């Protein structure tokens, strides 16, 4: 496999990840589709590359008081247990099967995220329209400013 292509794909995935868009969800299919990397190897790249970036981001967030500590354990404990079992399962499965399942996962997740984005855009439009009505009909509310 072409080293330059791999660096370029890694760079693209890294930019998206650094922007907080969930880089792995595109890094993995870019590697498998464009560079012919087996699914498990692409998964390993995403997991390994994530660790130093996440550790750096976490240190900054912790310093800014953005980590809600009591929310970690209730999700992380079941997640870690299932994660260990499923990574063993993945390593005993065929790359083609995993890749196809990952494709379905991406479509479902992408549609859900798209729906959420459109919903929030709609909510914003509604809120602005309501504010405009309030400003027009109740001008004294804003008169003090």
């Amino acid at each position: 496999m072409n080293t330059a292509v791999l660096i370029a794909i890694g760079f693209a995935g890294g930019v998206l990840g650094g922007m907080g868009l969930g880089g792995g969800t595109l890094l993995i299919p870019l590697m498998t589709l464009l560079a012919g990397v087996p699914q498990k190897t692409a998964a390993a790249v995403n997991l390994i590359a994530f660790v130093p970036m996440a550790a750096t981001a976490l240190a900054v967030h912790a310093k800014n008081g953005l980590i809600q500590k009591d929310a970690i354990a209730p999700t992380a404990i079941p997640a870690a247990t299932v994660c260990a079992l499923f990574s063993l399962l993945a390593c005993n499965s065929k790359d083609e099967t995993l890749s196809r399942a990952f494709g379905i996962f991406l479509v479902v997740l992408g549609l859900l995220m798209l729906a959420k984005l459109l919903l929030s855009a709609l909510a914003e439009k509604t809120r602005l329209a309501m504010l405009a009505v309030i400003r027009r009909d109740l001008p004294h509310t804003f008169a003090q400013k």
Partner: protein
Amino acid sequence: MFAHCAHNNVMELLTSKRKNRPLLSAIFGVAVGAANGLFGGGGGMIAVPALTLTGVPSKKAHATAIAIILPLSLISGAVYLAKGAADPSVILPSCAGVFVGGIVGALLLKKINSRGLSLLFYALMIAAGLKLSL
């Protein structure tokens, strides 16, 4: 100001009274762990909405999700490497690219229209998913 808030805060508005739901956290935890273990990614995209649904504010949810995904990636990364998905000729250049890209992405973050970019990102996700699954 309103335009800025609405994008991330709609989930909070919808769910602001639902806090501390351990069963919901556990169910989402299973989904996050399954995605991270089985596919090696995508857990974070489940963890963020999972946290906002249990009452964590949006900005904190993004940060706290990293605290949840980091130990998972250590576990699954170790399993993948130990079980033979470790081809150094692929892993080393790709990881180097990701690392440099990650720094560039973090620096670019403040200069870009996030909603348009998210839209493009999700469209690409769906397209890649269709290509992989069909």
